[in-house]
């Protein structure tokens, strides 16, 4: 058996590169310990380093005779103030996935400090350590352990301080609720009192001992969302709610088609409107005005003449994306492909073979808060508040665009109105900054829904060819899987196929495309799990049994069994008006299985019931996780059933919510979620995998009811009809 690719991160890295989100190198921090305490006040500072703690030991960063530089590889830091308040700094950001709460829980757990005494500063490029971005379900598996380590080290440090103060044995001291108590002398002291008047710094590597999940008291419980009250009272300030003194409102004049060049601009009418500034710079035209209404009016009054090249259209999409990319990817060794065993021998031994193609249309993220930015220039320094999953990448984009050093740019990320993989880039920040530069005032720019539908990027379309061979007893003996354009995430099956060849084929995409919840994994799961159902039918084996025959991974078997049990799989038979389907998935360290009941009434397809089992190791916040899983199911209904971007010759044809259908209350099925809490397994992320098995389970349920096999996403944008079924 030969395996050509083994790095599990490779798909993710490749996916990032494909989507123009190349990780950037960390920049050298210039923070000194005295700067820190000037900023934070006295107390204790503990820094976690990704990798070994080099700087202090080797003196590698000594410059100008100053030995107080902090190392460059710091990934998180934690400060305990003299009043006992704990502030934790992380470059991760909150977009509704609830990590502000789950990370705070983990700090509280290891630090043994009250949950409410801890505040997280997130995604501020001036204050938080460098972070590549919040995506790929990586906050929980990577930032979680780092914050736990930094907190555990701080707790050990505090115990040692108290031991020294009391001349006691550290082993006789316990820390709880921000207080250290000596079990012998019964004396106690709070963290704040202990650190009062001090400037203590500790650097840690990856060695402190962590509390095992079995013993968690705060992590692992359903702590309510941090700042919940601010959200239900409308007091939370999203980027689009911010206001600065003297701020004006921006609006960009958009071209009529993608890839346009500006031929001429007549802004005379717009400039007659009081308070309006028109900016024309290269291919960019925009306005600023004293209020939103005037800005919209002024942008409309600008007469801009664009030329655009002829561009491909939706009608030829699934042929176009099969053409190989003309540009090289940065991925060493080319696009991901894996081979195990011998596919040829596998096919030779197969009793039956099946070849099918599955397609995935372009869709939009439609975060309810559109892209927004507030930009301010002061003495050559640029400050931008913006809703982005990658504040450091946006900072770098701004520095490059305006040709200023990175340390002259600060990007701050208020907790944002969702992203779903759609807010990796900084175009709104750049536009606001350009307008602010021209206006000489702070500028707020909030994209309209139409701009969001047009000028943001899309979830990639895809064509997936699957060829398989199966023995009559239901063992898959050959598996060939080719994904064109949609991406390499989730290419690997959770099944133990002995003979397989899997390959991703990049193309030059017709639309600007990028990350989306789960990247390409929902597309790859759709093709794989519908194909599995087709094979089960081919050899006449019940779909649940057929999957179990090909599953060896015990975690995968456990979620499939749990979903079937929660759903009551097999208790009822499908009929022409009611169908049952299931599917399974694995991605980024977590497992999902989904059972679906659909109701068919003429052309109308309604998903009536979804039971989903999900396992992501030890659960940090059960209620938050339940919310994520049910939310992924609701969101997934759209891409499965009806969401689709229509385009023609460089234009989006349906850039409005009236023309682009998203899931609503009337689409809501009954949702039962079974969470398998594996305290023996390190926590994995949960933002993405729960969406992956839904679409194939729906397709399989529709087939069970009607005999119509739907192989294209979305499945029923115009209702169920024979024409939907790919032959």
């Amino acid at each position, binding site marked *: 058996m030969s395996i050509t690719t083994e790095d599990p991160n490779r798909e993710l890295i490749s996916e990032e590169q494909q989507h123009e989100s190349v990780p950037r190198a960390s920049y050298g921090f210039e923070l000194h310990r005295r700067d820190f305490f000037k900023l934070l006040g006295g107390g204790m500072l503990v820094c976690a380093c990704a990798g070994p703690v080099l700087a202090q030991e080797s003196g590698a960063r000594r410059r100008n005779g100053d030995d107080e530089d902090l190392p460059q590889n710091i990934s998180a830091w934690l400060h305990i103030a003299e009043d006992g308040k704990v502030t934790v700094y992380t470059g991760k950001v909150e*977009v*509704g*996935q*609830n990590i502000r709460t789950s990370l705070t829980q983990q700090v509280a757990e290891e630090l043994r400090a009250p949950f409410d005494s801890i505040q997280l500063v997130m995604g501020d490029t001036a204050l938080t350590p460098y972070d590549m971005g919040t995506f790929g379900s990586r906050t929980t598996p990577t930032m979680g352990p780092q914050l736990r380590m930094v907190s555990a080290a701080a707790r050990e440090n505090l115990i040692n301080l108290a031991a020294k103060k009391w001349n006691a044995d550290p082993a006789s001291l316990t820390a709880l609720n921000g207080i250290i108590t000596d079990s012998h002398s019964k004396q106690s002291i709070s963290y704040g009192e202990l650190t009062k008047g001090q400037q203590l710094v500790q650097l840690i590597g990856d060695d402190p001992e962590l509390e095992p999940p079995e013993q968690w008291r705060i992590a692992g419980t359903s702590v*309510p*969302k941090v700042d*919940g*009250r601010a*959200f*239900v*009272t*409308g*007091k*939370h*300030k*999203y980027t*689009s*709610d911010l*206001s600065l003194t003297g701020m004006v*409102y921006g609006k960009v004049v958009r071209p009529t088609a993608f890839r346009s060049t500006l031929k001429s601009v007549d802004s005379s009418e717009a400039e007659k409107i009081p308070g309006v500034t028109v900016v024309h710079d290269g291919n960019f035209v925009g306005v600023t005005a004293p*209020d*939103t*209404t*005037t800005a919209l*009016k002024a942008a409309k009054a600008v007469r801009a003449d664009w030329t655009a090249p002829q561009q491909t259209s939706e009608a030829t999409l699934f042929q176009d994306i099969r053409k190989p990319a003309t540009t090289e990817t940065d991925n060493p060794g080319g696009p991901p492909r894996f081979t195990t065993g011998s596919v040829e021998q596998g096919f030779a031994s197969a009793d039956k073979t099946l070849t099918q193609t599955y397609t995935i249309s372009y869709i939009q*993220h*439609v*975060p*309810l*808060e*559109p892209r927004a930015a507030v930009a301010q220039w002061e003495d050559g320094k640029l400050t931008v508040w913006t809703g982005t999953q990658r504040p450091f990448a946006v900072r770098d984009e701004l520095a490059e665009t305006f040709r200023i050093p990175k340390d002259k740019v600060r990007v701050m990320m208020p*907790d*944002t*109105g*969702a992203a*779903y993989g759609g807010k990796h880039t900084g175009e709104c920040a750049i536009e606001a900054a350009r307008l602010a530069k021209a206006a000489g005032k702070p500028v707020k720019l*909030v994209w*309209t*829904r139409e701009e969001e539908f047009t000028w943001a990027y899309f979830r990639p379309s895809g064509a997936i060819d699957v060829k398989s061979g199966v023995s009559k007893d239901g063992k898959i003996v050959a598996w060939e899987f080719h994904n064109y354009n949609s991406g390499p995430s989730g290419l690997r099956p959770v099944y133990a196929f002995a003979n397989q060849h899997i390959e991703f084929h990049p193309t030059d995409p017709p639309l600007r495309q990028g990350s989306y919840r789960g990247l390409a994994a929902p597309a790859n799961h759709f093709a794989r799990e519908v194909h599995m159902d087709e094979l089960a039918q081919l050899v006449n084996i019940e779909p649940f049994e057929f999957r179990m025959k090909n599953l060896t991974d015990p975690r995968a078997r456990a979620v499939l069994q749990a979903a079937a049990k929660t759903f009551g799989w097999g208790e009822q038979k499908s009929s022409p008006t009611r169908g049952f389907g299931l599917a399974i998935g694995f991605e980024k360290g977590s497992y999902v299985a989904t059972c679906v009941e659909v109701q068919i009434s003429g052309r109308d397809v309604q998903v009536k019931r979804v039971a989903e089992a999900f396992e992501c190791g030890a659960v940090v916040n059960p*209620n*938050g996780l339940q*919310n*994520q899983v*049910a*939310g*992924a*199911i*609701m*969101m997934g209904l759209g891409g499965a059933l009806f969401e689709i971007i229509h385009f023609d010759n460089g234009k989006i044809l349906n850039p*409005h*919510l*009236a023309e682009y259908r*998203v*899931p*609503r*209350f*009337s689409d*809501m099925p009954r*949702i039962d979620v079974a969470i398998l809490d594996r305290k023996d397994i390190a926590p994995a992320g949960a933002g993405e995998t729960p969406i992956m098995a839904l679409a194939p389970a729906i397709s399989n349920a529709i087939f069970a009811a009607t005999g119509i096999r739907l192989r294209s996403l979305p499945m029923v944008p115009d209702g169920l009809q024979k024409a939907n079924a790919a032959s």
Partner: protein
Amino acid sequence: MPLTLLINGTEHKVDVPADTKLLYVLRDNLGLTGTKYGCGEGMCGACTVLLDGKPARSCQASLSVVAGKKITTIEGLEQNGRLHPVQEAFLKTEAFQCAYCASGMIMAVVGLLSKNPQPSDEQIINAMDGNVCRCGTHPRIIEAVRQAASAKKI
């Protein structure tokens, strides 16, 4: 165009272009940013306010129409530091993720319950279908409405 608006029980004098929609007066002129922009087309409900107690899309509401009406925004629900029962129910059920839709959802529910204090699930779904939540917290929002309705009964 100078005019007076009655918002959350307080009169506000504003002077804005005549074709300004209520949403922008609230957000840009009065700093009442709890009311959100989501689509500007009346299709998502993020901008929902109450006009004389009835839910309305503030992104579609002309000032000439709203002048003289009692306007209630999310900021007007809390009384003396006490949350409205609907806000309480949303908080308790954690019926939000990014929470950007929460203001509009809560205003729509307040409007629904004032007209129909004990709605059936079907009536809740009908009343709320114009409000979009992209994070998919719909089941919890329904649960929050049920809880708020039973809290009001007591």
